[in-house]
């Protein structure tokens, strides 16, 4: 008994002793943890060599459904800045990661906590009462806003402001990077819009309501979803209704995110003569998409290729 008791006391003393034993240390560059690869890509554009960035979600993962794993807490524990998409996208796991990270610098309300949806005008904000009979509705609006590159500029501005606040000595360089990013993005947006112009008003169906911002920016018309309600798997009755609706609307493309099962969209495509187009909604979703620009280059390439074939 005394040996066990002594061991336990020793461990407890070590734990309490750590509270007072360590001095604080802050190392440059700024360590940034983002919830998604898209935010990480924009932080890299703005921060350049001033930051070390890591995303908690991989680009090929559905960011709604991560788990609050210890490995994510460990990454967040070392961060100087935590950036999330917000609008409920990470509602199931980000708060628990923050609590588990035990890093006061990045808790809600701290200067190292940033919700990138600040400044975004969200789409699909419910106008009436919301409950779960409507599926997984986001009461604050659709969180897939990074898929509009114009929103990319707002995100960049939000991130730049915070990076500058955390590294005031580098504020000039950060602002320069932001302006450069915005200029390049403006040029790219003009090119992407030009390529998509012939397809203005083309009706499409998407699996989940994750392409609303992209469709609005590039003139596509989303006329239906494979999911009957957000987050709810399709039922046979809904599939039949959707097939009839697609035939009426002459829909030729069904856009699905890479993590959704293809079986139902393939069935619908066979019945309607449409084509299933798997599009990654995030940087890193497909090999070779390393930057925010790469993402839209890829999406526009794939879409124009599919639409030009007249599917």
């Amino acid at each position, binding site marked *: 008994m005394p040996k*066990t008791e002594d*061991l336990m006391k020793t461990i407890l003393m070590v734990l309490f002793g750590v509270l007072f034993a360590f001095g604080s240390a802050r190392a440059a560059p700024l360590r940034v943890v983002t919830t998604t690869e898209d935010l990480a890509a924009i932080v890299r554009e703005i921060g350049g060599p001033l930051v070390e960035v890591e995303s908690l979600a991989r680009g090929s993962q559905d960011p709604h459904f991560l788990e609050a794993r*210890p490995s994510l807490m460990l990454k967040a524990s070392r961060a100087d800045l935590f950036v999330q998409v917000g609008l409920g996208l990470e*509602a199931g796991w980000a708060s628990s990661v923050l*609590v588990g990270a035990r890093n*006061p610098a990045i808790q809600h309300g701290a200067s190292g906590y940033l919700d990138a949806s600040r400044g975004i005008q969200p789409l699909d904000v419910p106008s009436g009462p919301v409950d779960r009979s*409507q599926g997984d*509705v986001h009461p604050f609006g659709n969180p897939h806003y990074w898929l509009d590159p114009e929103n990319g500029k707002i995100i960049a501005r939000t991130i730049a402001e915070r990076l500058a606040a955390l590294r005031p000595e580098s504020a000039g360089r950060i602002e320069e990077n932001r302006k450069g990013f915005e200029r390049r993005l403006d040029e790219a947006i003009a090119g992407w819009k030009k390529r998509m112009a012939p397809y203005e008003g083309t009706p499409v169906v998407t699996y989940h309501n994750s392409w609303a911002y992209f469709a609005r920016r590039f003139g596509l018309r989303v006329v239906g979803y494979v999911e009957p309600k957000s987050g709810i798997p399709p039922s046979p009755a809904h599939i039949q209704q959707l097939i009839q609706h697609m035939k009426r609307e002459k829909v030729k493309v069904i856009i699905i995110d890479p993590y959704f099962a293809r079986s139902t969209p393939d069935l619908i495509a066979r019945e309607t003569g449409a084509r299933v187009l798997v599009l990654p909604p995030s940087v890193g979703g497909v090999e070779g998409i390393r930057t925010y620009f790469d993402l839209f280059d890829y999406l526009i390439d794939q879409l124009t290729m599919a639409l030009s074939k007249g599917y």
Partner: protein
Amino acid sequence: MLRSVFCLIVVLLFHPTVEAQIQQGEGMRPSLQGPNLDISLDGLFAAAYFSEPEHLNFGGHDPNQTGFTLQNLELTLGATVDPYARADAHIIYLIDEEGESILEIEEAYLTTLALPHRLQMIGGQFFTRFGRTNPIHPHAWNFADQPVINNRLLGPDGLRNPGVQLSWLSLLPFYLELIGSIQNAGGETAVSFLSNEEVFPKIFPDLKFEERDVRRFEDLLYMTRIKNSWTPTDTVEVVQGVSGLFGPNAGGEDTYTKVFGFDFYGKWRPLNAVGGFPFVAVQTEVMWSYETSEDPNDNLLDRGVYLQGLWGFTRRWVAGARVDYVNGGDDADPLRDRRWRLSPNLTFYPSEFSKWRLQYNVDRAEHLDDKPLHAVFLQFEFLIGSHGAHQF
């Protein structure tokens, strides 16, 4: 009392400002972020059939009779208190075998958010963070009932009491967390320790109950735990831990109980999982305890293990199986004899906020001459409101 608490639930759930705060996220168990109040109500019910009326499901939240059981109705409240801490409370209602309504303050504790050097303190009434299953609320269990070894060593309601816990996430490049806690050793939720006059004789019928006052630090309950996690690949994460408990027991003036445990949890989930599916998860806990008594000949040694596997084979469906083995070395005592149990089950999740579970148990206990006992459970759960994510 119950009536007033239920009135509070109704007011909180349907108050317009609270309703507006309910997060309808697409993630699992959404959690409201910010200073608003998370509030949820979880109902867990079971229909059960036991082949013998004298069944072996002794857990406080297990299905407890042929017929229907309200396993728990859990009201959860949680919010950040200020920039320095958050608070969580889990208040449980259940109806026991005699039809009595029971109210339990399962947990109510403060968690610090602002301690330096990766330290975190919990204070209040909380589940002792011993092993994997003990701190998990019944509605988040992967099976309809409690593992047998948890029931025997940590009690039918799990080991929990008022106290304080300090944990430290190490500076090492991998996840290593040291946890230590001090809690009261008495009461009905500390059955292997000081317990109380009503519960202790049921657990240790051969020992005399000795009322002990708390006079010194050694009369409290101490827990230490080392938890490690590693990620061999992007799709696999493993969590393992060793835990130790030390505290006085009510078997004499200077008697004590030690409990040790090892736990392992590994989960595979591909990066392209939809809604968290598919996945494979394996979990095991090994525990053993040593209880001293006034007469060294009456010292007790208990041990046991469970091993479980879960396979989320397609979206919304999970198949599982668990094997329990315990042995306390007393062939006549239902709480200390050798016992085996096998529990396959199948769970369907219509959404992240409800489930249906079918489970079969076959039990062989030494005090019943290893005659098999059978049980079938159909469990269902609903969750309304905003409820924080569960432990990985």
